């Protein structure tokens, strides 16, 4: 990967663009393609699907056969979401593969975070949100009438953009999900805490100060703590909402390695605005645009041999 390459969204956060400089050797599996000899830009008509979306249509997304071959843990079916009058998600249909890392990419405002927050119904907290269609988690409907949202959220873990440890001790942060479920057994709590912290690659750094306030940790440690907190109750799907956007390059690297490690145990759905990050950490990638799914396939395929010109030009930084 050429060190000078930058992806098209120049976010000011340190964790995004400066990465490629800090770490010249990317994980070899997938490399983001450099812009080829094709002319930059091009006429608007070069992107018929984008044009259709801009006209308000919802074209059928290009979902690769490789995705359909995987066992499904999360099935999104013709899902629509409105914030008041404005529609944020248009007929999203996408299966999420069990035990894999799936990345959602797309320009700002494309609805990738909204889709992620629909899975654990965190959008319910926003006034005026209305949904149609369905999401099924391991065959259980997420939006059906009478679903216990609290039980649903216990089956999912979530990590947010900015590290948000609670103002309590490291230990209490990690075991929070167990405490609220009524676990009182000290041995069980301590074991679960150690296991989660080990999985989050934080145990060695904090094992001597579990009683200390989580606020004293660095940003990267706080985010790993949040991951430990999210996996302590062994969620069926781990939702990551741009988990590195507030972190420096080295902390970002550690989180990415961590995602790679925990992907052997958990299904991960990650939103990222950093395409190189998507290329590095994910098995499958979905490209979204203005609330529509555009193309969805194996990460290697999406970045190397996308089926749509729109996707190709987006992942190579020529459009978006």
């Amino acid at each position: 990967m050429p060190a000078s390459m930058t992806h098209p969204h120049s976010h000011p956060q340190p964790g995004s663009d400066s990465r490629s400089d800090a770490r010249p050797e990317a994980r070899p599996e997938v490399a983001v393609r450099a812009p080829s000899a094709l002319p930059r830009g091009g006429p608007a008509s070069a992107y018929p699907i984008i044009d259709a979306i801009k006209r308000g249509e919802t074209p059928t997304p290009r979902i690769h056969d490789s995705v359909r071959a995987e066992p499904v843990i999360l099935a999104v079916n013709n899902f629509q979401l409105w914030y008041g009058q404005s529609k944020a998600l248009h007929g999203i249909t996408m299966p999420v593969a069990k035990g894999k890392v799936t990345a959602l990419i797309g320009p700002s405002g494309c609805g990738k975070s909204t889709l992620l927050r629909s899975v654990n119904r965190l959008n319910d907290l926003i006034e005026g949100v209305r949904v149609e269609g369905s999401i099924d988690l391991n065959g259980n409907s997420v939006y059906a009438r009478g679903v216990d949202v609290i039980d649903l959220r216990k089956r999912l873990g979530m990590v947010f953009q900015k590290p948000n440890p609670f103002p309590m001790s490291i230990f209490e942060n990690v075991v929070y999900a167990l405490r609220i479920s009524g676990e009182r057994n000290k041995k069980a709590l301590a074991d679960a805490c150690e296991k989660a912290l080990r999985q989050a690659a934080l145990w060695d750094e904090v094992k001597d100060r579990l009683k200390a306030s989580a606020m004293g940790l660095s940003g990267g440690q706080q985010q790993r703590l949040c991951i430990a907190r999210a996996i302590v109750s062994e969620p069926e799907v781990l939702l990551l909402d741009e988990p590195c956007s507030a972190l420096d390059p080295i902390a970002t690297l550690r989180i990415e390695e961590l995602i790679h490690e925990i992907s052997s145990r958990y299904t991960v759905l990650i939103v990222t605005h950093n395409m190189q990050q998507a290329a590095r950490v994910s098995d499958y990638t979905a490209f979204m645009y203005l609330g529509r799914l555009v193309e969805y396939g194996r990460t290697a395929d999406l970045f190397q041999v996308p089926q749509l010109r729109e996707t190709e030009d987006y992942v190579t930084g020529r459009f978006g």
Partner: protein
Amino acid sequence: MASARFETRRLTSDAMFGVCAACAAVIVTLLLLVSGYLVFIGAGAINLSFFTDVPTGDVAQPGGMRHAIEGTLILLALAAAIGVPLGVASGVYLSEYSHEWLFASPMRFIADVLTGVPSIVVGILGYELVVVPVSRWTSNSVSFSGYAGAAALAFIMIPIVARTTEEMLRLVPKTYREGSLALGASKAQTVLRVVLPSAFGSISTGIMLAIARVAGETAPLLFTALGSRLLTRDPSEPFPSLTLQIYTYATGPYPEQKNLAWAGILVLLAILFVVNLLIRVVASRHAATRMGKS
């Protein structure tokens, strides 16, 4: 001319500085005069018996104010016991639940108005709502009591505590609430385990400010606690308080009692001073723990 204009600007600036400094000096001098005068007069009447003795009934040897000091502390504790839970709960409602339910903005408006209600009005309210009904119920002639006094003080505290709690809870980042809910916590668990504890420092500051505010109140107690010359710890009886005792002695004719009143004022000020100091300590500790965040 530019230099003339510069001269004028400099003069205006100096004049403004002079006016502000003079005002500040006047205020500080007045404060120092008042407290100096209090110490000068009051300190003479303070001795051990002031803290250990109760009124004797002999105007030449009036005894001490132990009953009033204890009474004030008990009244404050009772008022806080009534006012703090109600106030904090109302604040939680306003901040966390009101958008799902009704009454939020009328409640907020009423709380703001109540904060400004003259305390004598609260005294009459306490008389009408507590003293009179209890008298009827127990068929006593008039049931002035420490409970009635504490209720009146609590009534002053509630809107202050409620509004402070609301404001402080609003400052708790939304990400805490989302983080907790995303882990499968109920709303009640989120409020009790994450939101309230993270605002604990600032809410306790608000509570102590409210206590400091009511510690110096006399009017609400006039028709409720009434005051007493006896050392009593039974709040169902007419109850002593420093402010009431000061009021009685200061408006009486006997110089020895007037001296005691001065001493009482000094002690009251000392209590307020300590409470305010506590507020500062709690506030700065809280600020220090917050610092670790970023």
